[in-house]
């Protein structure tokens, strides 16, 4: 018996030693469980960043309920089929109030099929949640928020997919962005729906983007509710955007974008604005109390006479506006840049109220903008700056725009 006792430890040694050497040879164990759970705590930021770097394709990264404090951008690169999930938009907060480094709160780049859900990113120094070069990116029940009253010191963009395709934004919430709350730029195939944008300069902005459907959203208390813009000098131009069934109301907030940004030119009181883009259909929206204009169609040339981009088409065309509802009180925000005040003064001087639909009139021909609003009979004004930059040709005659365009196709793709 005693002999056996002496031998036994040797066998244990034989079994355990090689194992322990194997382990020490390769400390990084392969984790076959593809779910990584991050709990709040002092090490949570490092754990989250490690997970964002080391997660295998196909992983789910879960943030439990609570507040997660970061001092640096939380970033992911080159991943595929990743779900980042919180315990709820009002339960899991990635908090960047103490951020000392990095241009974004969360940054995800160069991947396919990335999904954020049930989580809020708040108080980032720069943009809140940026995704770049992702094919298939979904944001479901995601919030981007800057605490307190909206301020020009807040970051520019809330949800910020750029150079992406198959962008799916559903049931999200954006508050306080000093540029756009929900911004989709230089992307293709986009759905933005069921979301709320409040207290931003631009509530929802689609820029240099093709094939976007924006519907069933609510945009209120922004400077401008929903914008579709095309700007010069970028990687692509936009077209084919449908904006329908949205509730766009009370967007009268004084523009608080840092000067120099294009969005700083949006008049306070704008429901929906088109800038220099084409093939846009705006229909079945409910515009209430956007006191500068429910719908504004303008050219980049009104802001900058020389876009310097030979391939850029600054004149809007193939714009179709139909079957929207309009209401306003006429109580327009007077805290506006000089050029906006000039337009307001011009309208008043011509005994025109602030209209529901306002055109700057810089286009190739009136019928590039078709308006069919027989049921709601919106008020209308055309500054006709294309004919007379001083506003001498201003008119409230909408009949030149009595034309129809073919409905645009539905945007359809399988979201991740």
């Amino acid at each position, binding site marked *: 018996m005693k002999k056996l006792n002496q*031998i036994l430890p*040797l066998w244990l*040694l*034989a079994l355990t*030693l*090689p194992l322990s*050497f*194997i382990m020490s*040879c*390769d*400390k*990084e164990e392969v984790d076959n469980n593809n779910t990584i759970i991050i709990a709040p705590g002092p090490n949570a930021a490092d754990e989250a*960043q*490690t997970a*964002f*770097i*080391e997660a295998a394709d196909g992983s789910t990264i879960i943030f439990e309920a609570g507040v997660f404090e970061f*001092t*640096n*951008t939380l*970033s*992911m*690169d*080159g991943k595929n089929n990743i779900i980042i999930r919180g315990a709820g938009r009002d339960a899991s907060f990635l908090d960047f109030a103490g*951020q*000392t*480094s*990095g*241009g974004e709160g969360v*940054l995800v*780049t*160069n991947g396919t099929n990335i999904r954020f859900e049930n989580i809020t990113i708040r108080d980032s*120094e*720069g*943009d809140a949640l940026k995704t*770049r070069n992702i094919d298939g990116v979904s944001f479901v029940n995601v919030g981007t928020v800057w605490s307190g009253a909206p301020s*020009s010191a807040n*970051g*520019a*963009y809330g949800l910020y997919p*750029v*150079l992406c395709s198959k962008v799916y934004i559903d049931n999200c919430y954006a508050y306080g962005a*000093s*540029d756009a709350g929900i*911004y989709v730029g*230089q992307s293709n195939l986009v759905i933005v729906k069921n979301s709320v944008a409040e207290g931003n300069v631009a509530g929802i902005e689609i820029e240099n983007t093709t094939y976007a459907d924006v519907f069933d959203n609510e945009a209120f208390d922004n400077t401008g509710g929903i914008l579709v813009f095309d*700007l*010069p*000098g*970028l*990687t692509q131009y936009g077209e084919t955007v449908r904006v329908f069934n949205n509730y766009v109301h009370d967007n009268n907030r004084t523009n608080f974008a*840092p*000067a*120099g*940004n*294009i969005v700083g030119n949006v008049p306070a009181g704008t429901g929906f604005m088109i800038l220099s883009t084409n093939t846009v259909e705006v229909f079945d929206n409910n515009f209430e109390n956007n006191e500068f204009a429910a719908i504004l169609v303008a050219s980049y040339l009104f802001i*900058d006479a*020389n876009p*310097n*981009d030979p391939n850029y088409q600054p004149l809007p065309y193939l714009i179709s506006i139909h079957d929207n509802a309009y209401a306003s009180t006429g109580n327009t925000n007077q805290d506006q840049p000089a050029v906006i005040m000039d337009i307001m003064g011009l309208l008043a001087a011509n005994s025109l109220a602030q209209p529901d639909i306002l055109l700057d009139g810089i286009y190739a021909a009136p019928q590039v903008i078709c308006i069919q609003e027989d049921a709601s009979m919106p008020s209308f004004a055309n500054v006709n700056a294309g004919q007379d930059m001083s506003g001498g040709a201003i008119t409230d005659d909408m009949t030149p725009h009595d034309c129809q365009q073919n409905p645009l196709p539905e945007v359809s793709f399988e979201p991740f």
Partner: protein
Amino acid sequence: MNRIKYATILVMVLLLLGQCKKDEIDQGAINIPAGKGHTLLSTYNFFEGNVADLIPNSEAGVLPYDLNMPLFSDYASKKRFIYVPDGVSISFDTTGTLDLPEGSVLIKHFYYEDANGVEDYVETRLLIRRSDGWYPETYEWNDEQTDATRTVVGGARTISAHVDGQMQTVSYQIPNQNQCKNCHANNGKIEPIGPVIQNLNKDYAYANGTSNQLDRWIADGILSSPSLSNIPDWPGMDHPTASLNSKARAYLAVNCASCHRLEGSAANSGFYLEYYNTDSLSLGFWKTPVAAGSGSGGLQYVIKPGAADESILLYRMISDQVDERMPEIGRSVSHTEGIQLIRDWINAQ
């Protein structure tokens, strides 16, 4: 019988131990792991003797090098080394970053000096060229300054250092692996920034004498011979005769263009600063900002020719705000000399 078993076990254990230690037996050879980086910098054998002495393992082919126009990173001093395996060489190419062969490593060591010239090592970064591309590894020096340990998430360090002629506090950020790629990106793949012929074309004081770096690399067989006779170079900040334009463009190319180009992380800005870009709009002239936010500084144009103080480019070089400063990462204090150079250049347009 028991004795035999015992011996067998011992042999098994030793064999396993041997496998594990095999890499470390050959003391002189460069030791690059197949997977993730070693835990300690010293394990690679890039340096002879005490790793903290940073004496390149010249026997194995590790060479120090320098650049005409370095990237500014918070006034950190840097030492650079290159390792190219025996028997392979880099093609001579002046059109972009050199394409180093598999097995090559670029080593960049970051440190500060105090008022007495005592060096404080912060981090040493590696770019390792594998068959399928470049992989970054970052090593953070320990408090004893005896070796550096691999870090994936990086971290912040507050450093008091003698920079720009005075003692300053620098909020130094050791990058995480994703942040490496933020700058070292080319169409979504990692790529080095520094090793460009134009930036390498300069003399270096090697242990056995001074010679042009390209000549030395060619002589050592790590760089193929050029077909051109007139090899271009970029000027350094204090080049005595180079034009203001070439200095400024080299500065912008090195400090900005790794992101600010169509293939880089800032492609969406439409603002591209490669040395050879001649398109005035994408160079920023009269270009309105796209997604600058408060980074616009209230200014209308990225570059307003003749008016540096009305140009967003200069504003973002000067700003120390997290959401405004450029480069976005790797800078917490501003670069006085770089700002002066770009100010002069914009004003001269």
